[in-house]
């Protein structure tokens, strides 16, 4: 099969072209060692099938970003039969800069001149035939969006792939022509493939090339000693980049005919930007967009219609929500119209998953298997699967909205608006979105960190994402806060909830500052980014993107989640003598026994040894929260029933409805059994918010971090930060003056880090001077 690589700038329509060429044959993987998507597909309309590999979007073949290294290694090592270089005709100069570099490799090469329709619409003209003549490689005008010209393009690609091509350079007539020629001859003499490409890169003193050709680089250094340029001195990298751009602007100005002679003409995008990145309105508009995204995904009162018009609830209307029709209706409406995200979520979880798995569970219950096997399959495996699948709708809805923002070009503007604020923490403006997505669900948020270029910045962001309390943690907040208010008749539940969200954000900021100055130290990555022209997102691209993410999530998360769920289920349903236990006997389980054993560790957190005999319930609940945070409150309900059945536990369920969904009564039962105080309860919330998140998020973090050391570090980071935060909350809540001790400890740590870094810097500078 013929192998073709697709290369081009970001935002040049590369994804659209790839989707247009390969359609449903495409599949996504990862390039080895990095989290950059590798997409492959097959084009079938030629005489032979052509396999197309989508290289990452790049501006250059420099050695500085993983994307660029992947692209150049692929073209050089994998030797595709042809490279398609997609060029955005509306931005010819900068796009051809990459073309002049690909040209230097000995590989057949075809230019796909995209967005010609947009050029013509503006009244400009680009002479594709003339461009082909000047470049000496085939140039085909296409519209990836409309699918126009794709057949012609692929015919020429097919033809080109059958021929050999020798690299050419635009630097032939420049000041470095001699050097490049000599190095090229020397490299060719050593039997190096693609001698021209390597010669040019060596002249640039490219990090990777210097390492690979240590002997030949001397030629460059010798030449450098004899060379002086008025503008660039002996900076060959600058000289070469400049020569490329000079060549492009000299040769291709004749190819383009502009209708509008104005140099800095205003486009439609500029007009949109006048509002969207406005000095005063930019930030409020962004907040509004963000609010709209969350409202459309999570709100149970769409546009606040229910509140405004005072709709009646289904119960008041006399609808039977047990019957199928009523259930279906309840997915869309109950006293208020639900937002689209909630409707999709309800339809998926309450109808599709519920009925499909309900049928399965019924089938297994009716079988003649042993009690423990039925329990393992139904409560362990199937409930685990349900927990995984229930994440899908919010993840996909959030993804859809954020993909729309990304594709339309607005995401780049958000980074532009917020960069200033984030730099203070050693992050770039791009880190904001993944963090804020964390309020919805950590999984898509962690995957979204792929937009961050710097590995250390990525790791820091992934680690603090769970501190932005996700949708599944909200039930813990409302249940415990509700129980505090109900049991101790103090405070205000909303205030506690709000305070906990704030605590999470503060923890995240402190943690990022800490990491960026210690374990994940590194300069704030540079922020030099294209602001692409706004355009309407492509429905087809969005759907393909969404489908890829679904597969990614299900595949990566399934194994680890289901396995972990089964382990926890086994631990909570078997005793040390391997006797199977009913739900209500959970106090005899391995999990409960182990929890009792580790209880003392949780003493500084307020829910350890000081709670006595039944204190382990909080630990069991927190551990079950590792499967999914929804489980924490559900476990309380199970434990309440279990404790009530035990003589002498002191749990009196009179007047309490432990099965109630909000879980407030279940938590109250826990309070009466253990005698835990308010500080301990708040510390319990804080612990759950900052500790290891659910298995779905852990699985995603593992996949995204790629590097095992960093992943283990992340797990330890979560455990340590949750113990610290929860102990601080508990001790300060119990003895207010301990706040001074904590403050002093933080100040001391800060001082140590600063003075250590200062000394390390001085040492580094000394070393440089010597």
């Amino acid at each position, binding site marked *: 099969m013929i192998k073709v690589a697709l290369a081009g700038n970001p935002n040049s329509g590369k994804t659209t072209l790839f989707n247009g060429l390969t359609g449903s044959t495409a599949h996504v993987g990862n390039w080895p060692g990095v989290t950059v998507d590798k997409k492959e597909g097959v084009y079938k309309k030629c005489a032979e099938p052509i396999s197309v590999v989508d290289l990452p979007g790049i501006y250059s073949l420099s050695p*500085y970003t993983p994307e660029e290294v992947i692209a150049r290694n692929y073209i050089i090592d994998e030797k595709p039969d042809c490279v398609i270089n997609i060029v955005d005709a509306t931005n010819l100069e900068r796009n051809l800069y990459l073309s002049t570099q690909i040209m230097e490799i000995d590989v057949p090469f075809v230019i796909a001149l995209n967005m010609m329709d947009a050029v013509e619409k503006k009244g400009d003209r680009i002479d594709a035939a003339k461009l082909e003549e000047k470049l000496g490689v085939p140039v085909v005008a296409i519209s990836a969006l409309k699918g126009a010209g794709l057949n012609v393009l692929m015919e020429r690609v097919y033809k080109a792939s059958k021929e050999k091509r020798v690299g050419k350079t635009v630097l032939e007539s420049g000041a470095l022509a001699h050097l490049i020629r000599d190095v090229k001859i020397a490299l060719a003499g050593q039997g190096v493939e693609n001698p021209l490409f390597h010669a040019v890169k060596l002249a640039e003193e490219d990090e990777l090339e210097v390492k690979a050709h240590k002997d030949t680089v001397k030629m460059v250094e010798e030449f450098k000693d004899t060379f002086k340029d008025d503008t660039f001195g002996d900076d060959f990298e*600058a000289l070469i980049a400049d020569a490329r751009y000079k060549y492009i602007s000299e040769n291709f100005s004749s190819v383009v005919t502009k209708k509008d002679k104005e*140099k800095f003409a205003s486009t439609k995008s500029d007009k949109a930007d006048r509002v969207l990145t406005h000095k005063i309105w930019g930030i409020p508009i962004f907040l509004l967009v963000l609010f709209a995204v969350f409202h459309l995904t999570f709100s149970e009162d769409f546009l606040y219609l229910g509140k405004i018009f005072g709709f009646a609830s289904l119960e008041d209307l006399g609808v039977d929500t047990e019957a199928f029709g009523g259930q279906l209706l309840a997915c869309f409406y109950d006293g208020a119209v639900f937002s689209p995200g909630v409707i999709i979520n309800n339809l998926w979880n309450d109808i599709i998953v519920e009925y499909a798995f309900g049928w399965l569970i019924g089938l297994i219950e009716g079988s003649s298997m042993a009690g423990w096997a039925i329990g393992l399959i139904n409560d362990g495996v199937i409930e685990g699967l349900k927990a995984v699948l229930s994440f899908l709708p919010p993840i996909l809805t959030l993804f859809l909205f954020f993909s729309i923002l990304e594709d339309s070009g607005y995401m780049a503007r958000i980074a532009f608006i917020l960069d*200033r604020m984030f730099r203070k923490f050693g992050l770039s403006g791009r880190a904001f979105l993944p963090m804020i997505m964390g309020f919805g669900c950590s999984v898509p948020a962690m995957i979204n960190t792929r937009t961050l270029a710097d590995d250390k910045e990525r790791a820091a962001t992934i680690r603090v994402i769970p501190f932005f309390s996700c949708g599944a943690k909200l039930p813990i907040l409302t249940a415990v806060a509700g129980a505090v208010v109900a049991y101790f008749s103090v405070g205000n539940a909303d205030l506690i909830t709000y305070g906990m969200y704030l605590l999470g954000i503060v923890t995240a900021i402190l943690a990022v500052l800490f990491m960026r100055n210690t374990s994940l130290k590194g300069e704030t990555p540079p922020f030099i980014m294209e*602001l692409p022209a706004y355009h309407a997102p492509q429905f087809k691209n969005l759907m393909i993107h969404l489908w890829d993410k679904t597969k990614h999530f299900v595949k990566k998360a399934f194994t680890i989640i289901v396995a972990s769920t089964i382990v926890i289920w086994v631990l909570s349903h078997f005793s040390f003598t391997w006797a199977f236990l009913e739900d209500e006997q959970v106090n005899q389980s391995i999990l409960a026994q182990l929890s009792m054993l580790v209880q003392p560790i949780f003493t500084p957190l307020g829910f350890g040894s000081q709670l006595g005999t039944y204190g382990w319930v909080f630990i069991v609940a927190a551990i079950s929260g590792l499967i999914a945070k929804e489980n924490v409150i559900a476990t309380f309900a199970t434990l309440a029933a279990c404790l009530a059945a035990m003589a002498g536990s002191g749990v009196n369920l009179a007047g309490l409805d432990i099965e109630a969904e909000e879980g407030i009564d279940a938590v109250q039962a826990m309070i009466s059994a253990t005698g835990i105080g308010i500080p301990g309860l708040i510390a319990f919330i804080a612990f759950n918010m900052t500790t290891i998140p659910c298995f779905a998020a852990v699985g995603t973090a593992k996949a995204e971090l790629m590097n095992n050391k960093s992943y283990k570090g992340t797990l330890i980071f979560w455990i340590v930060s949750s113990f610290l935060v929860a102990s601080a909350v508990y001790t300060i809540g119990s003895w207010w003056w301990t706040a001074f001790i904590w403050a002093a400890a933080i100040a001391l740590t800060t001082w140590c880090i600063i003075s250590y870094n200062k000394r390390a810097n001085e040492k580094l500078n000394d070393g440089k001077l010597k």
Partner: protein
Amino acid sequence: MQKLLSDFAVGDTGVIKSVGGEGKIKRRLFDMGITPGAEVLLRKKAPLGDPLEITVRGYELTLRKNEAQFVTMEVQK
């Protein structure tokens, strides 16, 4: 008159004289078309005063003042 790109006011235009900085940052600036001779318009500043948005080689680019201070400009009237 020469001026650093980081000292430009909104609406200023100029031609790039020279680009300084080191390794990664400098190379990135070059790759994005910030090379001597290119014309630049400072289109706007972000709401908090930084980063900057410029038009260069017919497209919009954003960069921080930190990076813009490596770029020396010949101011156009």
